[in-house]
């Protein structure tokens, strides 16, 4: 701690900070541009100048850049000093000399750090009267728009894109006041994290292109605290809605999880929730004709089907909330509840849960991953399967430079100095995969091999660390040497992190990862971390909830279950069409509760129109076992009367009420959570994941919209000129509309949108944090459900090495960030970004087959045929085939299966 004096007042601050961080953390407003809590200080923009005095007696002082001056004990500074104020006003005047002043047509307007800072400095009249420098813009792909004339050259974009996210196709070009920030030429930004430019840029150079077509001001949107549904990481997001559509996703700060950044799948993949093809009313069929139902009819119809059935099974979903899965389980009974996850994945998830519970190894938060000093990743290309984790791992690797700089007493915020000292030094990271991975550029060593061989290497590493861990027989010398090398690197590190997951389709990889972690722990390396990546937003939640696999559900149908209720799950994404068809065709009744019109929905007799994450509340559990609540953003029926979209759990609750009590009790979220907590002690913690519906600030609910929200009385005028009462939210502490509390200083941790007086841009988050870039003042939202205990033994089932069979190819799972996720793949921009997917084989296999690269090849499996272009990889093993699972209807259960009919052209 240090005592600093600001404008005559004494404050206690963290002496390791710089003065800007210290002042902002104290709640004092100092304008800034080039500094960013996640990017450190470089002193480029000169906006944060303050007057610093030698001591209490010094009256003259000198201007310093507060971002570049340490908050050392006994520092005397003045923010209000006239010279400092005049200089800061000058800086904005200079920045604006080439800025086009196009706020009225700029998408950043009302969400703009440049506007906020300009107002803060008081610069309000223009003296510069000459021509402005102009630039040409670039086409940067489907996600991000580019308008360089607005650039104030703060350099944040290039520092984020190149230095933080390790992107290579973006930079700064030119010199003097003709500096240009962009790609060498037009083209889609290659980084999976390019969307963060939208929030990193303090002005409107980079804006969200998906928002452009349906643009509105930030203050005209309705927001809610939400959780990204597109993978198992559980990033916190703030979706914004207007006119009944989600119009963009902003990052929602969570100091434990994603802090300032999202991946592009999460930020831009929301289009599926706006699809016209979504069922917006329940419907059934009379003959061939689709008939829409009202709520009572739909509920009655479901209830009648259930009553008339001999056995009703419920097929849940890892992309549905705990509440919805639990409501289904209540409706059909525990014995008839199935998770909807295919058996192999279910087994892997159960193993992951077992490891998390009993390995005695800590699972770090996303934020904590950034502090590990050696990483081994077994089997997962995490940039594709849990992208935000990859961004954190990239920061961990850079810890080496921070360590080298710390030796020279260079502060953590002195990022330029750290980079100069560290140069290209990295902490070691080792990866294994069936092919190359997107982390190749930072890995110390990468091993491409079939999954079983990757697992064998993992077991060998564990054995090399602790000889009491099971040994691997017949490992070749070269691989043994590598295992020894990696083992010693991990042992020498202070904080090694082991990452694996379910998506390689090989359970022994999880075992091997657990063994390595355990072995390190046994050798006295205390701060071992273990991160296991699951596939979907609530995979871990469903593993904790329990239930039998999808395979068993299909068997139950063969064994006589005549009715199935499928919850938010397209079974065709998981298992072969043949098997799913076979089972569904045996059913008398199929009820689907979903917000998408999927292949499974098409088979349904009754479809109950569920809400997506934007229209429903619920709780999901991420890969670390953190339960997080997402809140309904808007009520679609407000804009389109007749729309009957409810949270899936509400439909199921209504059906249950009708079935059991002949009542129309719709229940509340809190009731359901209370029931869940009491029946499922392992999930009891979710009650604390977020405040309940009774939470109030000074007697007020929290507002979903900024208080400048406009057009409310007009937006429904096409339906009626009488404005109805705003929808009432019984389930959450949020009010639809701007009526309610949005005070950043209030005691709350669920924040719908970042806004504070004078701070309209995402930089407003610093008003909600305990210290800038730290944690939310009232704690980061969410609650961790799993506490590990040291009971587990080493796993000893070591797989045999893969042996290629002529004419057969083992499927290697090549998940794709853009395209593999069942929901976001329905979004047009994700399809555009994903482009054409390919199958990958080794050139030697291609030679045997007599096919050329880029040729169309076809294969059949499980009653389905695929035709895709071919690409080569020297890294994939002979006898294996890399398939982009999840895309093109390639089901997850293909992983590890054998394809025996690969050929050129049509099958």
């Amino acid at each position, binding site marked *: 701690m240090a005592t600093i004096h600001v404008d005559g007042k004494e404050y206690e601050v963290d002496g390791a900070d710089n003065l800007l961080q210290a002042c902002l953390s104290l709640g004092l407003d100092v304008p800034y541009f080039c500094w960013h809590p996640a990017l450190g200080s470089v002193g480029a923009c000169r906006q944060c100048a303050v007057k610093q005095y030698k001591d209490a007696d010094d009256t003259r002082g000198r*201007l310093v850049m507060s971002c570049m001056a340490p908050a050392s004990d006994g520092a005397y500074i003045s923010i209000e000093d006239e010279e400092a104020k005049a200089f800061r006003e000058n800086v904005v005047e*200079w920045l604006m000399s*080439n800025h086009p002043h196009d706020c009225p047509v700029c998408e950043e307007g009302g969400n703009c750090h440049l506007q906020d800072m300009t107002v803060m400095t008081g610069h309000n009249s223009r003296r510069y*009267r000459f021509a402005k420098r102009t630039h040409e813009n670039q086409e940067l792909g489907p996600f991000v728009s580019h308008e360089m004339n607005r650039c104030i*050259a703060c350099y944040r974009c290039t520092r984020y894109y190149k230095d933080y996210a390790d992107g290579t196709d973006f930079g*700064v070009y030119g010199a*003097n006041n003709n500096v240009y920030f962009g790609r060498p030429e037009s083209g889609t930004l290659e980084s999976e994290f390019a969307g963060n430019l939208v929030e990193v840029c303090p002005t409107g150079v980079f804006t969200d292109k998906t928002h452009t077509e349906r643009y509105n001001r930030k203050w005209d949107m309705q927001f809610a605290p939400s959780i990204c549904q597109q993978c198992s990481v559980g990033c916190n997001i703030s979706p914004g809605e207007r006119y009944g559509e989600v119009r963009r996703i902003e990052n929602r700060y969570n100091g434990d999880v994603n802090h300032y950044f999202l991946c592009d799948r999460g930020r831009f993949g929301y289009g599926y929730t706006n699809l016209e093809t979504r069922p917006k009313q329940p419907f059934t069929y009379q003959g061939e004709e689709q008939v829409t139902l009202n709520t009572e009819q739909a509920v009655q119809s479901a209830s009648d089907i259930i009553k008339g059935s001999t056995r009703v099974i419920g097929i849940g979903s890892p992309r549905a909330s705990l509440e919805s899965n639990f409501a289904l389980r209540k409706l059909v009974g525990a014995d008839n509840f199935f998770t909807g996850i295919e058996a192999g994945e279910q087994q892997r998830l159960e193993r992951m849960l077992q490891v998390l519970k009993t390995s005695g190894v800590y699972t770090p938060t996303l934020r904590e991953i950034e502090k590990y000093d050696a990483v081994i990743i077994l089997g997962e290309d995490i940039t594709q399967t849990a992208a935000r984790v990859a961004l954190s791992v990239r920061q961990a690797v850079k810890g080496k430079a921070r360590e080298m700089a710390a030796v020279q007493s*260079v502060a953590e915020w002195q990022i330029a100095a750290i980079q100069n000292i560290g140069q290209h030094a990295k902490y070691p990271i080792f990866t294994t995969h069936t092919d190359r991975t997107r982390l190749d550029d930072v890995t110390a060593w990468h091993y491409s091999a079939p999954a079983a061989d990757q697992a064998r290497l993992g077991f060998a590493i564990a054995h090399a660390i602790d000889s009491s861990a099971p040994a691997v027989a017949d490992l070749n010398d070269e691989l043994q040497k590598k295992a020894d090398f990696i083992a010693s690197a991990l042992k020498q590190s202070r904080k090694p992190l082991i990452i694996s997951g379910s998506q390689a389709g090989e359970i022994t990889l999880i075992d091997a990862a657990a063994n390595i972690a355990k072995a390190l722990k046994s050798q006295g390396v205390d701060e071992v971390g273990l991160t296991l990546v699951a596939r979907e937003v609530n995979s871990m939640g469903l593993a904790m909830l329990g239930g039998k696999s999808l395979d068993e559900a299909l068997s139950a149908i063969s064994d006589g279950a005549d009715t199935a209720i499928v919850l938010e799950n397209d079974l065709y994404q998981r298992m072969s069409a043949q098997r799913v068809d076979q089972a569904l065709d045996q059913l008398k009744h199929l009820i689907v509760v979903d917000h998408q019109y999927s292949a499974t929905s098409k088979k349904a007799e009754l479809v109950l129109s569920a809400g997506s994450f934007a229209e429903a509340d619920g709780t999901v559990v991420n890969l670390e076992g953190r339960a997080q609540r997402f809140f309904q953003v808007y009520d679609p029926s407000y804009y389109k009367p007749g729309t009957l979209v409810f949270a899936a759990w509400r439909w199921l609750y209504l059906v249950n009420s009708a079935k059991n009590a002949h009542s129309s009790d719709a229940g509340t979220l809190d009731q359901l959570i209370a029931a869940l907590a009491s029946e499922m002690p392992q999930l009891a913690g979710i009650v604390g994941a977020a405040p309940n519906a009774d939470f109030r600030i000074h007697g007020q609910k929290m507002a979903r919209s900024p208080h400048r929200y406009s057009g409310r009385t007009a937006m429904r005028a096409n339906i009626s000129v009488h404005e109805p009462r705003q929808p009432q939210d019984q389930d959450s502490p949020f009010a639809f509309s701007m009526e309610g509390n949005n005070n950043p200083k209030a005691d709350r941790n669920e924040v719908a949108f970042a806004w504070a007086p004078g701070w309209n841009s995402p930089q407003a988050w610093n008003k909600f944090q305990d210290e800038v870039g730290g944690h939310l003042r009232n704690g980061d939202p969410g609650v961790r459900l799993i506490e590990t205990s040291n009971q587990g033994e080493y796993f000893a089932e070591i797989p045999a090495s893969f042996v290629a069979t002529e004419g057969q190819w083992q499927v290697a799972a090549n998940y794709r960030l853009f395209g593999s996720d069942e929901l976001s793949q329905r979004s047009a921009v994700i399809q555009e970004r994903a482009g054409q997917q390919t199958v990958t084989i080794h050139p030697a296999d291609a030679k045997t087959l007599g096919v050329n690269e880029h040729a169309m090849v076809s294969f059949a499996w499980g009653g389905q045929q695929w035709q895709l272009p071919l690409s080569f990889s020297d890294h994939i093993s002979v006898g294996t085939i890399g398939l982009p699972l999840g895309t093109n209807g390639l089901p997850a259960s293909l992983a590890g299966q054998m394809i025996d009919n690969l050929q050129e052209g049509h099958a």
Partner: protein
Amino acid sequence: MSLSINKTAESHPLTWCLREDEQPVWLDEYRRKEGYVGVEKALAMHPDEVVSLVKDAGLRGRGGAGFPTGLKWSLMPKDESMNIRYMICNADEMEPGTYKDRLLMEQMPHLLVEGMIIAAHAIKAYRGYIFLRGEYVEAAENLRKAIEEAKLAGLLGKDILGSGKDFELFVHTGAGRYICGEETALINSLEGRRANPRSKPPFPAVSGAWGKPTCVNNVESICNVPSILNRGVDWYKGLTTNGSSDCGTKLMGFSGRVNNPGLWELPMGTTAREILENYAGGMQEGLDLKTWQPGGAGTDFLLPEHLDLPMDFEHIQKAGSRLGTALAMAVDHKINMVSLVRNLEEFFARESCGWCTPCRDGLPWSVKILRAIEHGEGQPGDIETLEQLCRSLAPGHTFCAHAPGAVEPLQSAIKYFRKEFEAGISGQANNLREIRGIQPNQQ
């Protein structure tokens, strides 16, 4: 180069062995003229002794800032484990009107090589780079040849002259940015990055090229070192004249419309008048000296009344300018100060690296105002805006010294010749539509 002066090793340590035919002095001739004696003496000494010697000699950096060379060397880390160190020569001579390093490198390449070896020994560097202005093609050729000669003679490479000292030396030619003369921008450029200056601390002595301890010295500074080793501290201090507190000799010159523009090695403290009148032959026929810059484009203008000042760091600074490179420029009475300063500011604005706001956006604004004034289209308030720019682009307000240097001629031109600026103010702030390039955004 005036050849009428009788030059000796004692009086003209930098230039005494230059050839009359202006051809380079190669190794054999250089060795005959006391060449590499300094290296031999230095290698026999402990590096710290060499540092002390140069410190005691009072050698101040000849690149313009005048930072004591020995002191700079002594800032290198004492920690012996930091054993990868670089010695860099700043030969990116780009200051408008400055041409002193060029002479030394073209005609006396071995003097720089010798100085580099001694400096490398002093700071325990195993590798050195001469960061040379790209346009100095002849200097590059001669330096490279000199390095080859020195290598063959065992003066560079492994185990120099059997001393156990290793040092390899490379010439790196720049790609043409003025800012590369700023030592940290030079280091970035050498590393292959954008030539933006780095923030300090950490200083290059701790974390320089490729993050390793690095020392950057100007060509002329390094060329002073061999004779200090050779002849000692007392001799070096005694070279000074007119009671100057600075030591040694300095390459000084005068350009502009003088009769004999040129470059001479003179004792520190020689008056500007002596250089202008005795060496440069005074102003050309019919021209009066109006003002002069003592040491490069980035130094404040001085008046004729300042001509009797001794040319050294202290006296020139007291008069409100800087000695800079000590290559003065005479401005005659026919030159309009607004045009002159506009030309200078165009250069500085163009050469801004674009990193910090005041420099990147402030300097171009000053250029645009100066152009307007030059065309008689200045508006009331323009001079005040220029003055405010000069104040706010002060040292410490900007990221490096580029912008503060850039506004030095502007602020002194306004100070001494305000009337010339006022003459360009039309006083018609409302008549903007007729003014070329000015947008009618005020009514």
